[in-house]
């Protein structure tokens, strides 16, 4: 690293850009799956909480 830390900041900037690009793609795919799972579990819980009469209607 040179006296003013240019290399350090270059590494930080490069890491942030590469990491962010990668995680965007990864989270875009996996996050959609998480939403489906979360809403599915909530729907099941809600159906379980409803009284029989409400479920029938």
């Amino acid at each position, binding site marked *: 690293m040179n006296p003013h830390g240019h290399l350090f900041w270059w590494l930080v900037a490069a890491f942030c850009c590469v990491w962010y690009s990668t995680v965007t793609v990864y989270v875009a795919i996996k*996050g959609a*799956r998480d939403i489906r799972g979360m809403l599915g579990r909530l729907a099941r*819980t809600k159906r379980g909480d409803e009284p029989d009469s409400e479920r029938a209607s």
Partner: protein
Amino acid sequence: MSHFDPWIDGSIVGVYLLATLIAGVMVRRYVGKVEDYLVAGREMDVYLGIASLAATEFGIVTCMYTAQAGYTKGFVGAMPGILQAVAMLVIGLTGFCIKPLRLSGVMTIPELFQRQFGPRVRWAAGLVIILGGLLNMGLYLRIGGEFLSAVVGFDPGWLEWVMTALLVLVLVYTVLGGMLSVLVTDYLQFVVMSVGLLVVTYLVFADVGWSRLVETVETHHGAGGFDPLAAGGPGWSFLLFQSCLQVAATITWQPVIARLLSAKDERTGRRMYVRTSAFFAARFVIPGLWGIAALAMLTPVELAGLPPGADPSLHAMPVYLARLVPVGLMGLLVAAMLAADMSTDSSYMLTWGSVIYNDLCAPFRKGPWSEKRGLFWNRTIVVLIGVFLLFFGLWFPLKGDLWTYFSVTGTIYLSSVSVLLVSCCYWKRANSWGAAAAIFFGAAFPVATLVLPYLDPEKSFVLTRLGDNWNGFLAYVLAAVGMIVGSLLKPASRSGPTVAMGASS
């Protein structure tokens, strides 16, 4: 001169806004209980958590103050982000404070405090959280409006109307769907925001280049622009204050904690912390580079064209982007920034509202409320926070730079609440006297720093002489000393932390 085309770019923005509104409103049918509304039924998984946490903690205002930090401090302006990234990683790996917090099954941090310090401390902690949180958030709308005005090129006279329309849109889905709508829209907003940020960063590098960024920092800031401890750098006081602030924010910043408490279990919460940690560096580094690029590329003539009273260090970045980003991509940039702003606004309104409902209103609830009544009051509180934001954002005149304002307002509660949380989890002797002293001393310095310059600038000379960084650091030290001294002075009446480390989640 902006390159925003009303048809091409406007259509991109319109499609994004419509998709967000539909997604946010559609999930309202899954909300049946207050727990669904405030913590999404504790069903959030790790990748949705990453998207939501990242989207929430990056708004237009984040982009503005981090770019301003790059403009005024050089690369060193990104140090708070690096410190928080380290804090998120270490705390996520060790579970420091966040593990017992999630295992306790509470919906807000003050609720946990009641178990060790009693209901009065819970209420007082809730009060400083709301004071610090709402003051912190008060400027978001105006700063967001100023960014959009500069980038899109609309008349600043329209700013209030644009702010109001944006807020109403966010309120619609936040009020209806609570945390569920926030999580689903956060996911959409994370994707749009991230693509926009990365594309603009590529354009900035193509326009300026790394060498010129380095030369600009060398020319304007010297060695202090690269090394915080070098001559001309912000120095130890900055590093000490920011280290305390970032650790405290990582364990007690309510919008962050709301994700931890919404996670489906403690392990998921910790994984979310670890995997989002690098984002907290990126959210300072990337806009910081934009700010340095603005410093490099804007001419004095262009800066002279700013509206009267506008701070060049704050407005240079949007003016530069308005010049740089071409038609088509401008729509993507505006959609990305709207996504960033909306996710932050919705989440912050909901999480501050959760503290008002859960902790400040707790003494006034006689007996258990029905879920329907609880949901009604939560929704009403969110609307009232929206009204507050609109009016506060319109009349509050900011003195000093944005990041300092946010650091100081955040410290009003971060200093004491972080000390209370650490004590609650790990110090058996901590009690209500110590907690009360920590809350008082933790809030005293930041409140004085904020208020005195407006009331009587001459009487604020002591604070001015110390500087904002030492004032902020002292708030953390005094809160810790207050907790220790206060707790030791009160005769111990019970033993052992009451936070159940192994309780069911």
